[in-house]
């Protein structure tokens, strides 16, 4: 193994806290060769990013390397002093961060930041540095580099910024790049381009890349080798093909089984058996006390026609000089009772805007909404809308900001019940306790505050809150995109149960095509505010009509090499 550029052996990282020692990484091994992309995969808290920070010497205090060694080209680099690490950092080992929106200094031009870094590392003159900076921008695929070099980060789009970040990481021609979730904040199409760029650069410059991610799709499409981490430990390591196709460790197996496949539809995700994080969901008990309303006569529960929403982009005193941005442009579709209707699209395509108009959170600028054959858009007063609002409930994307941190969980769940005056007195508490039991948290969870729960548990609280008014229609706006894949599998199973056993109708919004395939009966594809195509899910995936849909589908990771162990009984 003489040609290894980066070799991590028996690395342990400890974070001493007042109560106990937290072992973030426990005896991890990892080796990267030149030109190799090595995936580091695991769920949040597994210690992936800590390994990156430890290699860079950027551990937050009081974290420190307790044992083991990090060698760069055969030389030990841990234990170097601050100056010694700095000589290595950026020069030999570079890092790319997750969020391109925050990793560039907003007050300096892209050029200033590049030139500063190039000057520092390569000791070139200002003019030569600038020339090199333009070359680098050109290399990472930024059009008109000589013009754009004088622009500020906010003048670049998300994908372009990540290219700038990559250019910055390349400034000193490093031998190793640590990319920490480089595409998580990007749209699918941009993600594919950035990953392609990283692959090209690794090949072309023989740079070793550690690609830290939680996304199995990224791992499958990009990496040569993969190391799987669980709670600070490396559980499995090997070539990507071997680890994903024939996983040996139980954790890897359960992780892979939980990944939604674009090519297979499963009835339920297999329940993870590893790590004891299983939480029950008592759908039968819930269904017993559920009051089902009269079914609609037409079979269509929700129908929207020509729904339009414009936002003021630039204000001016003279109305004709105002500029508007059309977030939703004459969107029409209908949802049959008891069905899950998906809307997919990239960020800014207007998915959430449509959902918020249906939830009457936004006023419409045109178009009609019918619910149970009644025109909602004609109801003017808040009182008239009450009954409609009780029947539709929403589950939001971010489980952290969608629950009021100053309210107790039982207050959060009781609030819609009290607002709609559905129950009184002790019956409210009874309903709350029952819901908490059913979603698997137990009634004692009601006495706690939201911050005491994990992301997946909070999403269960959101579900309990949404179910509190016994709605007929659920709007799920990216309900799992902030969650780990195993937690996502649990939440998706719950949503499937709700549809099947309670007869709930759902609008399911997602940018994640494999998830949509698992969840939805029919799908609408949105682009730049317009509904491009509406079709049955299976038809859409098998034979997309529109060019844009085909493009989206082609960018989706195929995951064909993934093991199907544990899925056999569930494939539909």
């Amino acid at each position, binding site marked *: 193994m003489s040609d290894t550029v980066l070799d991590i052996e028996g690395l342990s990282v400890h974070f001493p806290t007042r109560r106990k020692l937290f072992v973030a990484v426990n005896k991890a091994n990892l080796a990267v060769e030149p030109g190799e992309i090595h995936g580091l995969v695991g769920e949040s808290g597994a210690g992936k990013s800590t390994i990156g920070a430890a290699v*860079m010497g*950027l551990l937050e205090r009081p974290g420190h390397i307790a044992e083991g060694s990090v060698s760069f080209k055969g030389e030990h680099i841990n234990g170097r002093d*601050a100056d010694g690490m*700095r*000589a*290595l*950092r*950026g*020069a030999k080992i*570079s*890092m790319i*961060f*997750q*969020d391109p929106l*925050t*990793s*560039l*200094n*907003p*007050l*300096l*031009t892209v050029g200033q930041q590049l030139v*500063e*870094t190039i000057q*520092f*590392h390569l000791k070139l003159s200002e003019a030569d540095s600038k020339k090199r900076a333009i070359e680098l921008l050109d290399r990472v695929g930024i059009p008109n580099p000589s013009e*754009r070099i004088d*622009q*500020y980060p*906010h*003048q*670049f*789009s998300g994908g372009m910024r990540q290219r700038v*970040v990559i250019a*910055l*990481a390349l*400034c*000193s021609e490093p031998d190793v790049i640590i990319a920490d979730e480089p595409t998580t904040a990007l749209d699918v199409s941009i993600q594919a381009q950035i990953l392609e760029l990283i692959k090209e650069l690794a090949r072309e410059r023989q740079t070793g890349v550690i690609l830290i991610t939680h996304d199995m799709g990224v791992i499958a499409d990009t990496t040569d080798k993969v190391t799987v981490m669980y709670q600070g430990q490396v559980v499995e390591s090997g070539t990507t093909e071997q680890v994903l196709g024939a996983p040996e460790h139980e954790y890897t197996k359960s992780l892979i089984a939980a990944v939604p496949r674009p090519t297979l539809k499963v009835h339920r995700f297999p329940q993870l058996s590893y790590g004891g994080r299983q939480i029950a969901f008592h759908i039968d008990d819930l269904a017993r006390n559920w009051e089902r309303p009269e079914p609609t006569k037409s079979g269509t529960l929700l129908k929207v026609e020509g729904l339009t929403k414009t936002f003021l982009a*630039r204000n001016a005193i003279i109305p004709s000089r105002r500029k508007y941005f059309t977030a939703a442009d004459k969107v029409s579709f209908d949802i049959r009772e008891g069905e899950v209707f998906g809307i997919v699209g990239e960020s800014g395509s207007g998915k959430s805007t449509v959902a918020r108009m249906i939830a009457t959170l936004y006023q419409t600028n045109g178009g009609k909404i019918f619910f149970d054959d009644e025109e909602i858009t004609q109801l003017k007063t808040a009182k008239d809308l009450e009954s409609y609002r009780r029947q539709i409930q929403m589950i939001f994307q971010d489980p952290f900001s969608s629950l009021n941190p100053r309210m107790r969980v039982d207050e959060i769940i009781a609030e819609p019940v009290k607002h709609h005056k559905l129950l009184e007195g002790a019956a409210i508490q009874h309903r709350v306790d029952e819901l908490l039991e059913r979603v698997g948290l137990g009634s004692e969870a009601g006495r706690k505050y939201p911050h005491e729960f994990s992301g997946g548990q909070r999403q269960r609280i959101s579900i309990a809150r949404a179910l509190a008014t016994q709605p007929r229609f659920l709007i799920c706006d990216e309900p799992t995109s902030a969650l780990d894949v195993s937690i996502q599998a649990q939440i998706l199973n719950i949503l499937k149960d709700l549809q099947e056993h309670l007869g709930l109708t759902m609008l399911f919004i997602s940018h994640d095509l494999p998830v949509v395939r698992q969840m939805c009966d029919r799908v609408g594809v949105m682009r730049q505010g317009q509904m491009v195509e509406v079709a049955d899910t299976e038809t859409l995936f098998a034979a997309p009509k529109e060019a844009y849909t085909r493009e989206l589908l082609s960018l989706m990771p195929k995951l064909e090499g993934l093991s199907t162990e544990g899925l056999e009984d569930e494939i539909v």
Partner: protein
Amino acid sequence: MLTYVLKRVLQSALVLLVVGLVAFSMFRFVGDPIDNMLGQERTDADIARLRADLGLDQPFPVQYYKFLENAVQGDFGVSFRQGRPVAEILVERAPATLELAAVSGFLAISIGIGLGVFTAIRKDGFLANMIMSVSLIGVSLPTFLIGILLIYLFSVELGWLPSFGRGEVTHIGWWSTGLLTSSGLKALILPSITLGLYQMTLIMRLVRSEMLEVLRQDYVRFARARGLKERTVNFRHALKNTLVPVITVTGLQLGSIIAFAIITETVFQWPGVGLLFINAIQFVDIPVMAAYLMLISVMFVGINLIVDLLYFAIDPRLRTDGKGAH
């Protein structure tokens, strides 16, 4: 950009008009200046004549209009007490206050930002923690008490520094300065510390918390990950971002340095406009009070305008007129 400045100037003018109106109408309730100006042996005819002379018999809107009309031309009327034009008195007094405010403002900003950055970078250092604890005194003690304590220590006990007045001043044109003589400089030390201490600790604590926030940002971590020197990271990347919110508060604080000068000037018998105002209140000298309030509000509004323009200079995100290529 130009439309923005124009809009802000118009807004500022409106603010000044309102301040003028409020100030002017309040003075109607502070007492009758005629009482103070005429002695015990006065006749009704005397009172009526003086009223007419001073224009106090006119209806309120007329008085206000005349005040504005004259004020725009730099004429703030005649002081009831001193019998001299107010503008002349202000010009005479203003340099003392402005010098005091400028020196304490400079001290507050430079020491405040310096210590703020220091305490943020050495977050857990012993010295930084000491500074943070001591700074609590600056925030919690009232200005006059600090002034009296300083006078007691340095003037009464140690006898190093004068306890009142400006010392020797030199005249450059109409401007009188104490910065060129040693007694003038000595006289500046205690009042400027007294006046600036609160602002200094406030700026320091603000800079510290903002800087700690900025140091956690990804672009600072990314700058470190690129191997840049610690100094470059702290001062080129972090400090500039820290200053954006700090500027707002600092701007307001500079305004209040001038306004709070009243207390300091009283404690140190500093011959500035603040002391003038206190004396004017005792004598119900309406023209002086009105002119003083207008002066202070002009400065507040002016400083805020400068702060807003500084934003443009520092933060490029505000400068783009929608030409960003998104």
